[in-house]
């Protein structure tokens, strides 16, 4: 293994960003509405120089109204889930951990369902209620998962799993109360779906706010990455080496939970990405968290944008929920990569 240098991290991330760019271009090009690369470039160029009146209205609608916001949301959700997954895997010292293992998604789903029953058709209610549900679950599991005043990984894991199954049971009960269009909305939400329009008409502000939260949470997790590497060898050893284990765990727990809550609130529970992408990145780039966190973030973004592009195109004009696509494509790809690395 070559030594991990800042230069190497930089180049790896730059390469992945290049890959993300290619995927974004492909995603912009593909879709039920036929539009050539030239037209896309032309539309983007005219948008940049402020000559928008020269572009056909439909190109605007397709490129700026439909595809770009969806790609931006996909990047955000993929990066958040994957970063959160990497965080939980370290925090719980369990390779099976994913962003949903501690019940954050169940809490968010419960919030969303309650909002659909109590206030159907209120714009934005579902996102806000989902985030409140996620935040309450985060707090509840935090207090249940402490032992002797500090976060204890096995206790936390058990508390989270029990909370998740309890919340799921409540969801099952409530689902029998919901009918018609609410049931359809919630089914899509549970599968994970990027098509829900944002709760405000100010798409710029909305995406800006989401990215700001992402950067704060992911940045906070990144500051602990060196310490996380130490904690992974054993908490006792890390303590002896001067790591404030409790503080690190608290930061990682809050950051990973906020990232999960953020992603789940806007897109529902998209599965697999948060579990698989950190492992894929470990296979390619090693297990050092200073490398893993940024590569997982970009890799998650690539995975979701790619999956969403497939979801939009494989059975066009009908669209699949992106969560169905990540689960369908994620498992075989992961098995393939894992077997290939073992050879």
């Amino acid at each position, binding site marked *: *293994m070559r*030594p991990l240098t*800042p230069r190497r*991290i*930089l180049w790896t*991330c*730059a390469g992945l*960003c290049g890959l993300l760019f290619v995927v974004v271009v492909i995603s912009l090009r593909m879709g*039920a*509405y*036929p539009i050539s690369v030239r037209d896309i470039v032309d539309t983007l160029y005219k*948008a940049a120089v402020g000559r*928008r009146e020269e*572009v056909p*209205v439909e190109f*605007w*609608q*397709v490129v*700026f*109204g*439909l595809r*770009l*916001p969806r790609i*931006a949301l996909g990047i955000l959700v993929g990066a958040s889930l994957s970063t959160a997954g990497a965080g939980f*895997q*370290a925090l719980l010292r369990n*390779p099976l951990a994913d962003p949903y293992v501690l019940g954050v998604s169940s809490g968010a789903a419960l919030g969303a369902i309650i909002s659909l029953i109590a206030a159907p*058709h209120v714009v934005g209610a579902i996102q806000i209620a989902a985030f409140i549900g996620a935040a309450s679950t985060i707090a509840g599991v935090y207090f249940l998962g402490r032992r002797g005043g500090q976060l204890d990984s096995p206790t936390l894991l058990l508390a989270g799993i029990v909370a998740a199954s309890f919340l799921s049971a409540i969801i099952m009960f409530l689902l*029998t109360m919901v*009918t018609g*269009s609410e049931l359809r*909305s919630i089914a899509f939400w549970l599968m994970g779906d990027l*098509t*829900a*329009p944002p709760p405000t008409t100010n*798409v*710029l502000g909305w*995406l*800006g706010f989401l*990215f700001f939260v992402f950067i704060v949470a992911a940045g906070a997790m*990144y500051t602990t990455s*060196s310490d996380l*590497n130490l904690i*992974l*060898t054993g908490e006792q050893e890390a303590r002896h080496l001067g790591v404030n284990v409790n503080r690190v765990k608290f930061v990682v727990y809050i950051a990973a939970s906020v990232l999960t809550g953020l992603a789940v609130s806007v897109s529902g529970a998209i599965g697999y990405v948060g579990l698989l992408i950190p*492992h894929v990145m*470990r296979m390619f780039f*090693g*297990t*050092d968290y200073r490398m893993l966190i*940024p590569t997982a*973030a970009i890799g998650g973004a690539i995975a979701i944008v790619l999956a969403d592009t497939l979801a*939009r195109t494989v059975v*066009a*004009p*009908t*669209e699949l929920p992106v969560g169905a696509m990540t689960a369908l494509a994620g498992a075989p790809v992961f098995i393939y990569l*894992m077997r290939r*690395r*073992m050879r």
Partner: protein
Amino acid sequence: MGASRKSGNLPELVEADTLRERECGDKPRSVREAFLLEKTFTRARGKIVCIIVALACCHAVRAAGSAVQAASDKRAVKIVTDETGRRVAIPLSVQHIVTLAPNLTETIYALGLEDKLAGDTSYCDTPAAAKLKPHVGSPQTPSLEAIVALHPDLVLATTSINRPETVDALARLGIAVYTSDPHTVRGMLDSIARMADLVGAGEQGAALVAQLQARLDAVHARIAELPLVHVLFVVWEDPLITIGQNTFIADALRWAGAESAIVAEQNWPQLSIEEVVRVQPEYIVLTPNHAESDAASKSSELESLRARPAWKALKAVELGHIVVASDEFDRPSPGLIGAIEQLARELHPEAFALNASGGNFVGGAGLQMKMAASAWMKKECVSCAL
């Protein structure tokens, strides 16, 4: 690469620490922090690019929104409130319609407006010509891009099958969406009249509604004196799901002289078979298996019910009191009236035995009735077009 060749993760994670120590552990803390900072910047750079892209998108989205606004301002519009309470600006002259549900497609055909129908969903199979229209996907997950590509002046949606998210997203693109929300048969007729008005076919709409209402009244006149038949309407057999009191189907049943034997507040309650045995419905109404004709499916349904231990004890099954309703029954569309007529005939044959030659009732079993109804629909379309 020795560490990462291992398949499990924990061994790898353990190795990470030694790597870390090898690389950074021996460096002074300031160097390590510089390293962190530098990487933070690297990461930040990716994010900055993302933000710039996002900002550009959003700026453009806003611009696109205003462009759409400008485009629609140039044309005369009328502001209407749709059946879900949303305010919609609809062009005075509607030339391109996209329907997002089978019943809406059927309504457009019944109004004789098929030339204005630019696209429908892959579920739209009635009349057969609707299958040849460009499809925009399924009612629940249509492709918004495909809808944009058809340049619709008006998109018709319904709360009974479309998602509110789809309506919101289309409205944000500046596309006029009218959502219908009928809960009763009369509500459906009102909704047809309103939609006909919107697309500039008010007269055809009024004529169609009057005709459908006349048919309903004719059925009602024959069965008004008779007691309601208690039926079990089977929405789904396994698990057994029936209808609640407030559904559209419950209202249609009442028009056909029947009443759901199950009283439920929920719209689609799941039942235990014990409850069915307890209430002993007089008739069991099933929705058909599309592959078979009505007559064939009735006998095969009866056979399959008689093969089940709990069901064969039901009096209705013993007596063969099973009706396969037309699949129009669960669609709030003009074809529903024909389905109501058919069901009324099956449940109250005595009321239709007299004067069978008069009026619209050609006589015969459900299959013939359905054929007659559809032939009639065609005639209506022609007369509306004229």
